[in-house]
């Protein structure tokens, strides 16, 4: 705890003021070393564009899902936490209902995951927090390898709370997770049987025993936060929904276009 307290003084000062019984700094301190290893040495994340986040006030970050678990969110969480200028806490809105294991659920809550629903989202925005979300849903995270880096359509209803409150939305394109966790197929009947959201088949899962089966290939990740797009929102419900639909399409396109650009740059570099 001691070295953590020294390195992350600003972060702790900022987070300590927030009254959130589910969040735990001890847990963060415990996972800091493995996260740093993943971020710096394993995935070698190259994250650009953090200066595009507003320094004050609420912001919603939407990203492309991939790689079964929301690893992009966890990496961004580490990046924001260890940011020198503006350290901050990231709340990741995700579907946690399927988790039956109490310990896993509590652990995820303690590092900053928040169960997805509109009330939670609105509460976080009202508190002026930095929130991340994957509007593709679990279908996006379970993309087979052949469909890597093809964004599934964004669910505009997920954006409604943010659009309603006129929160700036920053798109974040992540190149890497789809190849770090190459997935062959998703066995849906088995997933239903085990009441899991999905049952992926990868090179290691479910064949190898526990810690080995979540093995990730050491792909170099690239993450780009893009320009937040300003939008106008009317007062009536119809106008809000119309605006959310437009935003969903635009954000999806921005992320897909950036992924295309990054992939193309990588192809050029390899040659």
């Amino acid at each position: 705890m001691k070295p953590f307290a020294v390195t992350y003084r600003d972060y702790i000062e900022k987070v300590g003021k927030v009254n959130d019984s589910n969040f735990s700094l001890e847990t963060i301190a415990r996972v800091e070393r493995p996260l740093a290893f993943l971020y710096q040495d394993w995935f070698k994340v190259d994250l650009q564009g953090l200066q595009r986040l507003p320094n004050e006030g609420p912001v919603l970050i939407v990203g492309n899902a991939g790689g079964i678990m929301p690893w992009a969110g966890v990496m961004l969480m580490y990046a924001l936490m260890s940011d020198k200028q503006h350290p901050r806490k990231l709340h990741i809105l995700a579907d946690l209902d399927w988790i039956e294991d109490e310990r896993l659920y509590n652990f995820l809550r303690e590092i900053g995951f928040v169960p997805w629903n509109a009330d939670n989202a609105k509460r976080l925005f009202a508190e002026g927090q930095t929130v991340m979300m994957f509007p593709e849903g679990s279908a996006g995270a379970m993309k087979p390898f052949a469909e890597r880096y093809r964004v599934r359509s964004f669910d505009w209803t997920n954006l409604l709370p943010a659009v309603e409150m006129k929160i700036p939305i920053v798109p974040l394109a992540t190149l890497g997770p789809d190849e770090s966790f190459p997935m062959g197929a998703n066995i849906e009947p088995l997933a239903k049987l085990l009441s899991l959201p999905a049952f992926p088949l990868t090179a290691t899962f479910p064949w190898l025993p526990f810690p080995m089966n979540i093995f990730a290939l050491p792909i170099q990740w690239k993450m780009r936060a893009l320009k937040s797009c300003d939008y106008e929102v009317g007062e009536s419900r119809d106008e809000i929904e119309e605006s959310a639909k437009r935003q969903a399409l635009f954000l999806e396109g921005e992320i897909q276009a950036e992924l295309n650009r990054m992939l193309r740059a990588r192809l050029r570099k390899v040659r």
Partner: protein
Amino acid sequence: MVNVPDFTSLSKEQAAANLARRNPSFYNRYAGKDDEFGFKLETFAMWEPVFRFLYEEYFKVTFHGLDNIPDEGRALIVGNHSGLLPLDGAMVAMAGVNHCASPRRIRFLATDWFFGIPGLREWCMETGQVRATLDNAEKLLAQEEIVGVYPEGIRGVGKTFRERYRMHDWHPGFVKLAIATQTPIIPIATVGGDEIFPNFHNGKTLAQLLGMPFFPMTLTFPWLPFPMPFMPLPVRWIFRIHKPMDLGYPPERASDRKLVSRISKEIQYMVQKDLNELLRERKSAFSGWED
């Protein structure tokens, strides 16, 4: 057994007579009219069976939303470009000629390179392509024609196989044109074109040396003797045509760069979304969307 049409022994007059018999409404609409961009119905009639064969028998093209192409009046067709030889434009033109309720000639704006090669230049002009300049586009739209534009430009045609169906960023000039001339925009997504000539490498040095926009290397291209490299793979094609979009901005807004680039992006993202969806639903490149 596919019936390959006999298009080698026909004279221009016979070809025109065949077209008049087979598709009288198209023939009557455009016969005997002078065209300032050099369209010749006889030449078109001679080549039409070749592309009709590709359309109907070889690629087995499917169009969704073909009735969104208007019977009368101008429109601007935009879409994703593909396929080394721009056959996607030819397929859209074929749909306009043979499969619309009211047959239309769809004229594509083609890159300067085609117009720098002596034989090709005449062929392009006589089959209805127009050199891509803003002037020409405005003239065509003033004549109430349908104009096809690929805002990706020549980069889109030269995509390598690994980049298939990942669009380059669009040049927003088409939105400017549409707002200035008050033309509805019809976005089209094309799946199939990027796989007919799998391109593994774009040679930069050779391209510069030969003055080509790019020098592709495919399974067949520089290696095999002449007609063989131009045999496309029999991939199934699908087109998704959107409803004509009336942008609803007054012509003065055409110089508003922020607005123009925003609309251009929105249309680009719409087409990319279609591509992603269509690809996901596809069973395989050669069997297409049915089992």
